[in-house]
């Protein structure tokens, strides 16, 4: 169990906000901090890692106190066993892929973990390359692997996929889920992509202006209460075309494009680029094995 309670005045782009959050995380779960930019999500991660100090706060990780301003306890970033994947990767440019991972080893730690991680992220062929020779997705995988070398108590991912194209994103989401399960990690993900959040998280905290406005499982938080659908997906509207009396809405779900028939009353508030939920409840979907 990880308990986090943080208070701090933050200077954001649009004036000062008072950050005030309480978060509880079950061990082994993946939670998401979701919200607009400037809401304080990255600051929360930085405070957990010890890179930023709150005015008041408490962080207890599996009975170990990392921070307790009331008692004047504040562990240095070095003493907190956390893994941090930065938005722009922050790989060490002077080191190769393998050296970046080796650097993260603790004194006396078995080097086998480095080889294991390199094979998990599938970069055996590129392990002797410098970061500048890698693509964005490859760099991100290295950053993820590097954060795991120390077997952190918390893994933090700060919008790890925002700079990648949609296919690479989907691939990396799978990598993250894979290592999250394989290393039984407790993971905090910052994201503002609804599809990603729903796909990945066990629990979501929606943050607005430094406060948690809603929390719960993805379905609890995002789905409309009237829907009790048997299956549902979130996608983005690519186009809305009028055809005779109905409208054809083209929606991107993950990497698939689907077309859905809608009537005027359904689409009157929808625009291209909107996030929508596609759900069905009236009939049973067919399930067929494909290989």
């Amino acid at each position, binding site marked *: 169990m990880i308990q986090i309670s943080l208070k701090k005045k933050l200077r954001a782009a649009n004036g000062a906000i008072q950050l005030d959050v309480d978060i509880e995380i079950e061990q082994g779960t993946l939670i998401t901090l979701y919200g607009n930019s400037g809401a304080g999500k990255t600051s929360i991660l930085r405070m957990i*890692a*010890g*890179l930023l100090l709150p005015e008041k706060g408490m962080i207890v990780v599996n009975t170990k106190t990392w921070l307790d301003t009331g008692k004047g306890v504040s562990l*240095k*970033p*070095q*003493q*907190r*066993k*956390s*893994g*941090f994947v*930065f938005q*722009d990767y*922050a*790989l*060490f*440019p*002077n080191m190769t892929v393998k050296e970046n991972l080796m*650097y*993260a080893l*603790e004194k006396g730690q078995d080097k086998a973990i480095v080889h294991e991680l390199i094979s998990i992220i599938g970069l055996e062929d590129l392990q002797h390359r410098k970061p500048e020779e890698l693509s964005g997705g490859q760099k991100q995988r290295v950053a993820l692997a*590097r*954060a795991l*070398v*120390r077997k952190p108590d918390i893994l933090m991912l700060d919008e790890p996929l925002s700079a990648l194209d949609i296919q690479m994103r989907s691939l990396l989401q799978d990598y993250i889920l894979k290592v999250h399960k394989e290393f039984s990690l407790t993971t905090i993900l910052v994201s503002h992509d609804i599809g990603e959040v729903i796909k990945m998280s066990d629990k979501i905290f929606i943050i607005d202006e430094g406060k948690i406005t809603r929390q719960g499982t993805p379905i609890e938080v995002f789905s409309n209460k009237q829907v009790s659908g048997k299956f549902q997906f979130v996608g983005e509207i690519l186009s809305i075309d009028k055809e005779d009396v109905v409208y054809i809405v083209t929606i991107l779900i993950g990497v698939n494009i689907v077309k859905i028939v809608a009537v005027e009353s359904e689409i009157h508030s929808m625009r291209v680029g909107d996030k929508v939920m596609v759900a069905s409840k009236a009939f049973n979907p067919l399930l067929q094995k494909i290989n």
Partner: protein
Amino acid sequence: MDWQPLLLTFKLALITTFVLLVISVPLAYWLAYTKYRIKTIVETLVSMPLVLPPTVLGFYLLIALSPANSFGSFLTDWLGIKLIFSFGGLVLASVMYSLPFMVHPIQSGFANLNPQITEASYVLGKSRATTLFKVLLPNIKPALLTGVVLAFAHTIGEFGVVLMIGGNIPGKTKVASIAIYDEVESLNYHNANSYSLILFTITFIILLVVYLVNGGYLKRVWK
């Protein structure tokens, strides 16, 4: 032609550069990352030799280190160090005079690094010292090279401050730039020309190498 002034010049430049490197890395690190307001004052002091006539620095050093004054007599009586009109004094004066040429490139090297690589290193459990030597310094190699070469070349080119504090003692404080002046005074234009040509060529080559390395030309040729 007497080679001693040239040898002395390079000995002075080498020692000065080494001392400067040891001092400047921590100083530049502090200047690049500190949030204390006193930083501005320190920055100003470091930059002073860029605009101050060398004679001013030389003059004050001469006064301060003179055995007739308390600090100078303390050095001589208690520590047995005599700094004026000696090689040690030249090194001290050169270090102060060339300080900005070493500190500025290293400081901007640190400042231009992505601050997140430092944070990434801390989160990985590495101390400040490990981070400095394994991550920061290797990533500012061009800045270090620029600093080393500029400080070296600038020390070779020193004249006023050396003359004030060191005088013109053959084998001890008579460096090449002073030898040139000396030869011209005695109308030995041939000797003056030899010294000058050597200094000219060497500094040209040194700077050329720096620009080639930092411009990445050598890497491209090797590949």
